[in-house]
């Protein structure tokens, strides 16, 4: 194969170019299966546990379902219409708004989000495996830390090797895994209710609830919205392989939004029933089902995590392929390594720091993704309606999305407006809030104000030509 042919093949496979119609073969069922199996991983238990700090079971279920659906709707409407239409990823889809260089901001967010979540999953995987080993008497308690690191290293290596096959490896995460995950989730809920009793579950009090009911409820909603906003990079990476926006929208809304909410209920219930577990299935599952029932379920959760890690790293590698100066110079295996190596470092050396600050990480996701979505929503529904595919992929002075040196300054201003709005309403570090946070959340006003300020600036302050393509 010549250099030239190799380049074109890679441009297609690695997402530098829009996916050819013939390569967009995922059916609605496949898309739904991938969405469910990717979204349901250990993080949902942790999210449920985080909500359980503020809410009782009934409030938690309502807040998580509503927050999750609202949260997924925002990035789906912001990014899916263009990514699913043209077969492009989320970072490329940001170019009409942020500019050809400004869209790298989306890549930075993608990297932080994917590496952060993948690290959370890998840490769990290591911890779960070592605890299974200890509970089965396969390794001593003093060896648990070494086993954990070894498992993390093996996982990272496994993801990297599997991804050498490119997009093909992502389709491994399919419908069967999704169905199994949903059945197992129902089984775990049954075990929890059967083990602790519904009355006890309904009567359980959240451990860190504030005196303000509204604050607790809104914070539960906010956390679920934040985690679903973080699907922004994944949505583009997945739907670019599907057959058009209409066939991809519901798999994303229900496959991700509803699954995340539904399975998060397990973490909520488990934490309320076994407060010491903090939603960690290694703690409550072994207690509920014993080693014989609990270990197979845990092993399956570990397997499901592997699929999610795979897709996350794939999305990262496709995203980094949007850095035009790296195209053709960065081998696929190096791109995937750049996505998975930081996960190994964080999981091995900063596990406690990350695990101890999950709510802060969630708030950071809301803080950053909310204004990005707001800008894209305004651009799609209020201003441009239709972007230029040529402008997205051909860069340089004179091209439609070059703006000022490749950056749209008005989008940056709108971004700052969105971030400032969020921080005014909710401090992501301390979770201290300002009115009207308890009535409107921090994410929704951030989406709204960033979008409106972007629309106003582009309509009345930007050169008219900036909206012509």
């Amino acid at each position, binding site marked *: 194969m010549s*250099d*030239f042919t190799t*380049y*074109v093949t890679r*441009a297609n496979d690695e997402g*530098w*170019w*829009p*996916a*050819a*119609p013939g390569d967009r073969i995922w059916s609605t069922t496949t898309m739904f299966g991938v969405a469910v199996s990717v979204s349901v991983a250990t993080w949902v238990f942790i999210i449920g546990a985080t909500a359980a700090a503020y809410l009782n079971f009934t*409030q938690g279920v*309502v*807040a998580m*379902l*509503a*927050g999750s*659906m*609202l949260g997924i*709707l925002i990035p*789906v*409407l912001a990014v899916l*219409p263009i990514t699913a*239409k*043209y077969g492009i990823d989320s970072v490329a889809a940001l170019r009409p708004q942020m500019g*050809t260089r400004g869209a790298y901001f989306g890549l930075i967010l993608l990297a932080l989000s994917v590496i952060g979540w993948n690290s959370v999953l890998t840490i769990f995987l290591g911890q779960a495996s070592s605890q299974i080993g200890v509970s089965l008497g396969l390794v001593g308690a003093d060896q648990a830390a070494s086993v954990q690191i070894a498992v993390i290293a093996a996982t990272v290596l496994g993801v990297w090797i599997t991804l050498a096959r490119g997009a093909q490896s992502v389709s491994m995460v399919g419908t069967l895994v999704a169905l199994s995950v949903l059945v197992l989730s129902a089984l775990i809920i049954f075990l929890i209710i059967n083990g602790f009793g519904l009355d006890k579950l309904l009567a359980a009090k959240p451990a860190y609830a504030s005196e303000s*009911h509204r604050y607790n*409820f*809104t914070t539960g*909603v906010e956390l679920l919205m934040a985690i679903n906003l973080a699907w922004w990079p994944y949505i583009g990476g997945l739907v670019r392989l599907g*057959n*058009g*926006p*209409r*066939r991809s*929208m*519901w798999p994303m*809304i229900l496959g991700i939004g509803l699954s995340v909410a539904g399975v998060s209920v397990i973490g909520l219930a488990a934490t309320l029933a076994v407060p010491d577990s903090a939603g960690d299935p290694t703690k409550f599952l072994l207690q509920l089902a014993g080693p014989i029932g609990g270990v197979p379920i845990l092993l399956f959760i570990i397997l499901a995590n592997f699929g999610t890690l795979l897709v996350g790293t794939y999305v990262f590698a496709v995203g980094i392929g949007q850095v*035009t*100066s*790296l*195209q*053709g*110079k960065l081998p696929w295996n190096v791109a995937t390594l750049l996505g998975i190596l930081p996960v190994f470092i964080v999981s091995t050396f900063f596990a406690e720091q990350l695990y101890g600050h999950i709510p802060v990480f969630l708030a950071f996701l809301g803080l950053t993704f909310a204004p990005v979505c707001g800008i894209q929503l305004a651009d799609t529904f209020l201003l441009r309606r239709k972007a230029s*595919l*040529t402008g997205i*992929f*051909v*860069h*340089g*002075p*004179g*091209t*439609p999305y070059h703006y000022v040196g490749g950056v749209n300054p008005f989008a940056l201003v709108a971004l700052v407006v969105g971030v400032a709005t969020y921080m005014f309403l909710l401090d992501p570090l301390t979770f201290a809030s300002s009115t009207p946070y308890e*009535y409107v959340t921090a994410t929704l006003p951030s989406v709204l104000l960033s979008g409106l300020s972007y629309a106003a600036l582009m309509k009345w302050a930007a*050169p008219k*030509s*900036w909206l*012509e*393509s």
Partner: protein
Amino acid sequence: MSKQFAPAESASSANTATPRGHASDYDNELASLLAERIRLVESGVSEDTALRARDYILAILVAGVLPLIALVIGGMQ
């Protein structure tokens, strides 16, 4: 932006990826292939698979309005 924009024409100045060490013929060839891909993708966009107003309305209703109602009721409890 007064310059008339055409994908293949602007390719020489465009920042399409360029493997190191190749001549500009190579760049032009790649740019014309990219333009060809863009035409292929744009011509493959079907109205049958596009989102229509009712798709948006249904999505906003199911994932937007209903959750908001649930939140208002839940928040008042």
